């Protein structure tokens, strides 16, 4: 299993730079997820590591060796594609052994490896079928099997679950997590779905416009985001953002009321505008702490929680995931509370201000 390092890696497509000097280290056996909105460069980055795209600048190292110029196959990485990319004219067995045959593995050995991988993935009874005769989930397992038999130094996943329906996606996510435990292999996983990122990753890399916004374990990204973008991207439902003005005795909300700041006020410039971030799940119609008063626009009762779409006078929308069990109706005026320490403050450039 391999350690993969990126050092000031850049990528230029016909004059447009799409990756801007990234530095990153992925440790041996780590499950690393690249996440970000579409067009952030996460797939390009993965493909550069795979050897499917040239590296315009900087260096990629696998176990300390520069691989910039190595053809994909020599990097000994395996990739699982979004569309599975199975060879439609080959049986499952042939699909899984194609790479071995291309690289000259003896037939008996290849058979044995395929057999073992098929067992792990419960594909044994499908070995003679063609991909067209399999369900989406089975195809995805074949794609993973094709990667496993090569015993690669690392696994690369390019949005592997986005072609599956919701139920299957959860199940396959679980299987991939289990596979990582079994193989304890280095895995790099690209997704735009922050739930996948949160559930699978040892380490999340949040990308935007070809730059890294933040790197860290899921809990840190959720609990201690570096900036507005990461705060908004990680967590579901999305964090509420309220424009505030710093004053001598607290933060002035758009509706004119005042709340306490999560950071010492002496770190803020009085009269400046900031953004206050509060997660919906940290707002409640009961308990103590800072207070927001809202007019209820719509309220959806999900049983365990009440999702309240509130409107602060001044027009700011605030989402509340209320678990108090209290019935709420539209048009009602309510007060919701949150702990000051659980809110976040960002400056005008979107950078987090820490206490």
């Amino acid at each position: 299993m391999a350690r993969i390092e990126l050092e000031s890696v850049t990528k230029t497509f016909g004059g447009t730079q799409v990756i801007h000097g990234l530095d990153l280290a992925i440790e041996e056996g780590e499950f690393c997820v690249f996440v970000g909105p579409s067009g952030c460069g996460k797939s390009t980055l993965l493909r550069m590591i795979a050897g499917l795209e040239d590296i315009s600048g900087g260096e990629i190292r696998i176990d300390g060796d520069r691989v910039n110029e190595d053809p994909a196959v020599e990097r000994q990485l395996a990739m699982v594609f979004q569309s599975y990319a199975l060879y439609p004219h080959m049986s499952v067995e042939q699909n899984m052994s194609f790479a071995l045959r291309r690289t000259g593995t003896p037939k008996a050995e290849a058979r044995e490896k395929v057999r073992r991988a098929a067992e792990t993935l419960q594909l044994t009874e499908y070995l003679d079928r063609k991909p067209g005769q399999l369900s989406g989930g089975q195809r995805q397992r074949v794609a993973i099997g094709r990667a496993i038999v090569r015993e690669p130094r690392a696994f690369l996943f390019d949005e592997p679950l986005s072609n599956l329906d919701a139920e299957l996606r959860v199940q396959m996510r679980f299987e991939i997590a289990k596979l990582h435990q079994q193989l304890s292999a280095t895995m790099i996983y690209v997704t735009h779905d922050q739930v996948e990122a949160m559930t699978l990753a040892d380490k999340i890399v949040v990308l935007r416009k070809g730059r890294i916004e933040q790197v860290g374990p899921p809990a840190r990204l959720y609990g201690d985001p570096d900036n507005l973008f990461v705060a908004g991207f990680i967590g579901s439902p999305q964090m509420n953002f309220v424009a505030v003005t710093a004053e001598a005795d607290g933060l002035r909300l758009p509706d004119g009321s005042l709340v306490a700041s999560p950071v010492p006020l002496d770190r803020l410039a009085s009269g400046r505008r900031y953004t206050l971030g509060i997660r919906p799940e940290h707002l409640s119609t009961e308990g103590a702490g800072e207070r927001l008063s809202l007019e209820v626009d719509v309220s959806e009762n999900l049983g365990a929680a009440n999702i309240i779409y509130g409107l602060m006078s001044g027009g700011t929308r605030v989402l509340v995931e209320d678990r108090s069990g209290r019935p709420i109706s539209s048009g009602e005026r309510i007060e919701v509370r949150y702990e000051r320490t659980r809110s976040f403050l960002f400056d005008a450039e979107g950078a987090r201000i820490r206490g």
Partner: protein
Amino acid sequence: MRRSNPEKRFKLIVTIALLCLSVIFIMPLYWTAVFSTRTLGDVFNFPPPLWFGTNFDENYARVAEVFPPWRPVMNSLIVAVPKTVGLVLVSALAGYGFARYTRAPGHRFLLLMAFATLFFPPTLALIPFFLQMSWMGWLNTFWPLIIPALASGFGVIWMYTYIGSTVPRELYEAAEMDGSRGLATFFFVVLPIIRPGLAALGVWTLIQTWSEFQLPLVILGDGSKFTVPLALTSLSRNYFSDTPAVMVATLLGLIPVFILFALLSRQFVAGLTAGAVK
């Protein structure tokens, strides 16, 4: 429900009219078959015979006196089969190159060149090509009908379109990750997937080649080398009045393409439409 009656009657009239038209369309072919089994006398009588006779063997014998009736068919096969296989392979390879390596320098320009060759009228090259063949000593051989025809702009554009729409990009990448190089990917991954397209282009090429007249006329001088249309033309010119004999020879020359069509008409039709949708 009152609407459905005139609608249905209209459709019935259309269907019957089309049936009649289709009979007119295939009548010449039917008569070819019928006449080939009739005597000379039957053919010149009115009304014309509508059903098969028993004179085929005799008519055949008269053709065989003039030339071996299967020889032109063999000659046509010797030209058409290697040309078809070669053309399909060369076209598929180039189509694969164009479909896969879209970012290579010169891709756009070269693709445009291949496209431009579609508008190259064969007539323009006929005379100089004849002279070129004569210098190369290829006159009166099958080579000029096979080798130059392998470069078909039509085939390349067809294959480019076909491969572009049937082979997803990720498949090339999966093959690349699996250690398959450009040519290996073509043979082991692309060719098996595009088999229907290969068949369609193949049938089209074969039928076209079977029909070819002007080029063989210019290139082939020796009657023993004549392909089907040439041999039939010369036969009909010299033994024109013997209609049943001409029809026998015609029938033999048509049989191979009709068998091919019967086997692969689906691919053929699919191929026709593939060319139309750019």
